[in-house]
C-alpha cells in the first residue's frame, strides 16, 4: 500500500523539505493524532493541508510539508504509518512533486494605487476576489515559489497587507527527473 520511503537523499542532495501525501480514514481525531505524533517525535511541519479524498468519501488526503532537517524521512513515514487511521503515504522530494498553493491577500489601497495593484495582479496571474473603498482582496494559486514572490512583492509595495496561505498541496510528478 505504501510507497517505498526513499533513504539517504540528504547525503547526496541538500533537501530542506519533503512532501508527504497521506491518505487517512475520516475518523474523529485523526488530525489530532497526526499533529500529536509530529510534536512528540520532534518532527517539524512547514505546512499541512487537508481535504476530502475525491476517490472515496471514507478518506481524506493530507499534504504535509516536513522539515527534512528535523528527522530522516523514512522515520517520519514509519512512525506515521503506525497510526491505525493512516492508510497510505507517498513521500516525495521537491523535484518529484507537482506542488501548488493558494494565497489570499487583503491590501489596503485607495483609488490612487489601484492601477498599480491591478497591474501586479495581471502580471502575476492573480485575480481580484473582493474590494471596498479602501481595500482589495486578491488571490493567487501557483507554485510555492510564485506565491512567495507575489507575497514579497505585495509586502514591499503596500503598507498594510493581510495574507492567508493554504499551505501546499502536492501530487507526484508524472515524469519525475531521473
Amino acid at each position, binding site marked *: *500500500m505504501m510507497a517505498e520511503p526513499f533513504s539517504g537523499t540528504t547525503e547526496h542532495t541538500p533537501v530542506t523539505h519533503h512532501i508527504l501525501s497521506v491518505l487517512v*480514514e475520516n475518523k474523529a481525531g485523526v488530525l489530532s493524532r497526526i499533529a500529536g505524533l509530529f510534536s*512528540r517525535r520532534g518532527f517539524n511541519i512547514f505546512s499541512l493541508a487537508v481535504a476530502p479524498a475525491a476517490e472515496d468519501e471514507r478518506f481524506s488526503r493530507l499534504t504535509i510539508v516536513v522539515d527534512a532537517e528535523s528527522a*530522516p524521512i523514512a522515520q517520519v513515514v514509519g512512525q506515521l504509518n503506525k497510526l491505525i*487511521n493512516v*492508510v497510505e503515504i507517498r513521500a516525495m522530494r521537491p523535484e518529484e512533486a507537482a506542488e501548488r498553493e493558494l494565497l489570499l491577500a487583503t491590501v489596503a489601497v485607495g483609488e490612487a494605487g489601484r492601477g498599480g495593484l491591478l497591474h501586479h495582479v495581471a502580471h502575476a496571474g492573480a485575480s481580484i476576489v473582493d474590494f471596498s473603498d479602501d481595500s482589495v482582496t486578491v488571490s493567487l494559486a501557483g507554485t510555492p515559489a510564485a506565491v512567495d514572490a507575489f507575497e514579497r512583492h505585495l509586502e514591499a509595495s503596500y503598507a498594510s497587507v493581510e495574507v492567508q496561505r493554504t499551505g501546499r498541496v502536492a501530487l507526484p510528478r508524472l515524469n519525475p527527473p531521473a
Partner: protein
Amino acid sequence: MKITGAQSLIKSLEAQGVEVIFGLPGGAILPVYDPIIDSTIRHILVRHEQGAGHMAEGYAQATGRPGVAMVTSGPGATNIVTPISNAYMDSIPLVVITGQVPTGAIGTDAFQECDITGITQGITKHNWLITDVEDIPTVIAEAFYVATTGRPGPVLVDFPKDIAQTEVEWVEPPTFDELDLPGYHPQLDGDPALVEAAAALMAEALQPVLYVGGGILKARGAEALLALAETTGIPVVTTLMARGAFPDSHELCLGMPGMHGNYTAITAMQEADLLVSLGARFDDRVTGRLDAFAPKAKIVHVDIDPAELNKVRRADVGIVGDARRVTEALAAASRTKAQADRSAWSATLSGWQERYPLTFEPAEEGQALKPQAVIEALAAHSPADTIVVAGVGQHQMWAAQHWSYETPYTWINSGGAGTMGFAVPGAIGAKVGEPSRTVWGIDGDGCFQMTAQELVTARVEGIPVKIAILNNSYLGMVRQWQEMFYEERYSEVYLTPDLPNFVMLAEAMGCVGIRVDRPEDVVPAIERANAINDRPVVIDFRTDASEKVFPMVPAGASNSDVVVHPTQREGA
C-alpha cells in the same frame, strides 16, 4: 434480542475470550458493572486503578493473552495512565475500558469528565471513543485485534454512560478477518531475499552475537531462537526484556547486556563484527553512548515494527517481520551454509566469562544481608518454573542478574518505562494467569510503598503471591548514583528502615509477614513462604544499603568504559 449497551460490551468481551477483568467501578462506568454480575468473566476488584493496569500487564506477560482493565471516567481513567504508558514502552497487549460522561455532556467539564482519549493518544497503539451503541461489538473486536497483533501494545476504549444505557439489537462481533482497518496490515513474514542476505552475513561473521529483545518473547519465538543459535553456533545475549528467552545455562548464553549487564555480554556486543537483533530496539540502556556502540559491527535488524529499523542504528540488513517467523527462516537458511571458524571468538568470550563473572562479596558475621545473596537463595529454594516479577531499581537489576532464567515467561518487569510499584500488582496479575505456579514479586522498600495496598486485593481474591522486599531503607538506585556521581551527597533518598513496619503492614492486609535480618534465617524464611498457599506472604529482608549494582555503564558513557565490581578492577 434487545440488550443494553453495557450488556453488549460485556458480551463483546466474552466473545473475545476474556476470562478476567481487573477493575474498579465508579459513576460513569456504573451501568457496565451490572451485567458483570451475570457474566462468566471473573472481575478482580482492585484498591487503586494503577493496580488494575499493572495486574492486567502481569497477566498478559505471564500468559501471552491480552490483559483487560476497566475503570471509571476522570480520576479512574487518569490513574491508569501510568500502566498504559508502561504497556506502550514494553509492547504489552492491554485493553483498557474507561467509563466516560454521557455523550451530551462531553466537552462541558462535567463531573469526573476528562479527555482520556486525548491524554492517551501518544501512549496507545490506538484508542476509540464509542459514539454509537451499534459499534460496540466491532470496536471491541478491533481493540483486541490491534492490541494483540503486529507489535503488541495498549489500546483504550472510552465508553460514555448513555451509550451503556441505550438498547440495541445484539449482533455477533465480526471476526478479525472481517474487520475493516484499511491502514493496519502487520507484516509477518520476512522478505526471503533479505533473510538470505542476513544468513550469509551470519555464516561469514567471525565475531557475531545474537542480540535478543522482548520481541522474541512476544512472538513466542524461544524455540526458534534455540534452533537458530544451535544451528549457527552464534552466542546469545538476552536484554532485560528477554530474560528467559534463551536458557541462562546454555553454553551459548552470554546473559544480559546493557547498563547493568555482565561484562561479557556488554563487551561481546561492543567487539562484535555482526549483531543480529531479534525483536530488540537498540534502547539507550543497551547501547550506552550511541556513537561509540559496537563500532565494528554490521547490523541485521529484525523487527515487526518497520519504524524501529534505522531509528537508532542503521541496519545493513533490515527485515520487517514477526520475530519467530524470521528467526525460523534464518535458521532454515543457515542449515545449508558452512559457518566460519569462530574458535578464537569462543576462546575470547570464555576468557572474559572467567575473568569477569557476576560477583559480590558475601556478608561477614554480623553484617546486613547481601541483596544478591537473597536473590540467589530465592532462586535456589523455589520451584524451577517460578515466575519472578520485579519492581524498578537496584533489586530489579539484581533479580535480572542473579536469578538463572531457564524458560520463557519466568521473568516479568517494567523495562522501558521503569515504573516503580510494578511488582506487587504485576505479580498478582501473573498469579491470576498462572495460578498453579509460584510467583515471587521481588521489590524494593521504595517501590513496595507505591502499590502495596493491592495485597488487600490479593488476600480478598485468594491470590497467594509472595513478595520479597529487599529493604535497604533507601531509594537505592538513586542513592547509588548520588554516591558515584554526586560526591556522596545523598538528597531525599533515605526512607527509614522501620517505617512502615512491613511485617505489621503485611499482617494488616491479611498476609503473612516475616522479617529476616540474619543470613542464617534467609533460607528458612523462603521455605516457609513457599509452603504457604492460602494467602500472600511478604518477607522484609534487611539488606546492606551500601551495596551497588555492578557492572555499570555510567549514563552517557561508552560501553567500552564499563565499570566492573571493585574486586575485579585492575590492581584489585
